[in-house]
């Protein structure tokens, strides 16, 4: 409590100083670039574009989206880490850029904590464990039992992605050895599970939801601690494997050293955007849970996530150069 208060006071002082220093230059005075570290059309891109549009309105300046895909999000994150710390270049960070990649990559292109100033944790997105309907299982427990008798494999959107690690965590907690089959992205992985080339998939709930409602995929469990509001009938994996929890998340980051008043303005705009009923509706359709946190809470969240994933990454023995 006192910490928060001191911080607020400091923030206020900094703001006053900033105002005194450049009375005419209220942030933002020109357009802001939001770097999305993945290709256009993916779930992070979609969240980013919806939020950017609404935040731009709140700030009175356009936010331009720039997709800098590559190396599992590392290239885009690296670009923002090295950008001018003026608040005009910000990053749509994810569980991949700010928890997994730093743990997995042998060469660290950036430091997720030291190189960034947190702005706001926007949304949490559940993942889902789903199977082709021809696989004769109807629950997580039945899947575990079958996996102990037969050789099974699961598809994911790629090596070292949150979905791969969701599967790895599942294996280590359930004591199963379901083989991992990586794909280049969620689309081809889904295709092969729909065609029953591979029986099991871990996928983002938004990308799989259409197939679950149509019955082409059987959802066994969501990876969040609680059931997802959009699929109340699908149990949480944690109901069978207590303590199991993974999810993807999207959060805004600025380069470290960005002036506090710019962070405050961005945070305020982000909160305003996430409070918009239209944005909330879109996020709901997307099965994403809105968090809209303070910068401090995002900082803590990153620390928690890294602590949580470290043993999983070690256990799954994933490392990339």
């Amino acid at each position: 409590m006192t910490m928060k208060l001191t911080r607020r006071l400091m923030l206020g002082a900094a703001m006053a100083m900033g105002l005194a220093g450049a009375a005419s230059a209220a942030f933002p005075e020109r357009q802001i670039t939001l770097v999305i570290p993945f290709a256009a059309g993916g779930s992070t891109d979609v969240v980013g574009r919806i939020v950017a549009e609404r935040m731009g309105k709140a700030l009175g300046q356009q936010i331009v989206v720039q997709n800098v895909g590559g190396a599992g999000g590392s290239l885009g994150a690296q670009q923002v880490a090295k950008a001018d710390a003026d608040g005009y270049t910000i990053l749509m960070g994810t569980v991949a850029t700010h928890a997994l990649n730093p743990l997995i990559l042998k060469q660290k292109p950036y430091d997720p904590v030291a190189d960034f100033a947190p702005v706001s944790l926007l949304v949490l997105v559940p993942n889902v464990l789903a199977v082709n309907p021809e696989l004769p299982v109807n629950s997580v427990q039945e899947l575990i039992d079958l996996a102990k008798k037969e050789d099974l494999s699961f598809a994911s959107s790629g090596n070292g992605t949150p979905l791969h690690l969701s599967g790895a965590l599942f294996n280590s907690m359930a004591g199963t050895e379901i083989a991992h089959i990586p794909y280049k992205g969620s689309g081809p992985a889904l295709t092969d599970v729909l065609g029953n080339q591979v029986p099991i998939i871990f996928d983002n709930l938004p990308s799989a939801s259409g197939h679950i409602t149509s019955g082409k995929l059987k959802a066994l469990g969501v990876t969040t601690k609680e059931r997802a509001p959009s699929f109340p009938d699908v149990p949480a994996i944690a109901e069978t494997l207590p303590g199991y929890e993974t999810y993807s998340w999207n959060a805004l980051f600025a380069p470290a050293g960005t002036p506090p008043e710019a962070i405050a303005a961005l945070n305020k705009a982000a909160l305003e955007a996430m409070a918009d009923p239209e944005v909330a509706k879109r996020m709901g359709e997307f099965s994403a849970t809105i968090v809209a946190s303070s910068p401090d809470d995002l900082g803590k969240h990153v620390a928690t996530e890294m602590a949580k994933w470290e043993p999983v990454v070690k256990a799954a023995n994933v490392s990339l150069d």
Partner: protein
Amino acid sequence: MDLLNNLALGFSVASSLANMAFCLIGVILGTLIGVLPGIGATATIAMLLPITFQLEPVSSLIMLAGIYYGAQYGGSTTAILINMPGESSSAVTAIDGYQMARKGRAGTALATAAIGSFFAGTVATFLVAIFAPPLTTIALKFGAAEYFSLMVMGLVMSVALAHGSVLKALAMVVLGLLLGLVGTDIYTGAPRFTLGITQYADGLNFVALAVGVFGIAEILRNLEDEHDREVMTKNINRLFPTREELRQMVGPVLRGTAVGSVLGILPGGGAILASFASYTVEKKISKHPEEFGKGALAGVAGPESANNAGAQTSFIPLLTLGIPANPVMALMIGAMIIQGIVPGPNVVTEQPALFWGIIASMWIGNLMLVVLNLPLIGLWVKLLTVPYYILFPIIMAMCSIGVYSVASNTFDLYAVAFFGLLGYLMSKLRCEPAPLLLGFVLGPLLEENLRRAMILSRGDPTTFITRPISATLLLLTAAVLVLVFLPQIRKRRDEVFTESDA
């Protein structure tokens, strides 16, 4: 009749004044941006995507689809006029289309491309409308083993792309395969051939490769001897094909449409094989295979039709499964989600107006393109009268923007320069770029599916012959192999007796 009702619904949606207007805008924007050298359909859509976000879902997708075909038309135009393909599909068109342009038949080549594309687009649209759901079922039967066998067939066919030495063509395919492997191994995450540059972790950019080995190499060839360069501009008074040429087009267009429609349905990369496969077929059954690579009409008509048919039928997995077959489709899925539509099998039943509206607009868009492009041919051909030394600084500027706009990766620009040098070196050494390009496209798919098939079969290599579709494809491959190499061997034997081959 369900189908008629559905189509009627579709046309009523697509022919509303607003949607027609958006389709037209999409088609025009797509053509204009796509015609810029080095900018293909993916770059065009990436640039124009934000424009569509403000629209109604149906209008937005209709416009995006329009941009997609427009960019493909535009890309073929640049491939024919200046040998600068912006996508893998137009790389095949560049082989004979550019040679036709050099011989003063640019108008004929462009008209052939437009007519072939329109016919293929029409047929494929009806295929999508009638057979989408059953075709999807077939597509889902393709697993890793089947895709591997399909890619092997594609590789064998690629040899037919060459008109010079078969040996060198094979070497180019293998070199292309190796270049295609640059990047992160998807199974272990190990970086391969990246020389420690993280910017190449996702592989080399296809546009950079195509622009380099085709376009820039061609610019350099033109700069070799400026006092003595051939003038491309003579003899272009005739823009439209003669009756005789139209007659020659019929066969290639029909065959190309069939090949493209079949391959386009497969979401795992069938469409990219379409134009290559069609070229092989045409060259194989032509009475004058020696004309291929030197400006054969069938070498433009077939692949262009196949390409457009494939582009159209690749909407099938997108619409019925909500699964993108290529990066452009992935962008469209993103657009759907932004518009609040959950892509998936339910789109057909829950959003019939959207589904059938898009299908109907495909045909309308193709019609608009042909109406738009035929008169433009005169203008494009005039472009060739612009002196080359004025054209190429413009080309270099556009290439730089186009390549950079795909992923804002400056290393892609360095790759353009490298591949320009490689392409020029290859042309000096009489090696052809098309097999290299096909190898580059197929390399990752080949390895990915081979290894996936082996993991899925638990290390049992018989999986390729025990799965019926895969076995059939391998048998076909063997047949193609015999067809391609038997005449070569026979010819070589004859040559041994007459004279050493030059």
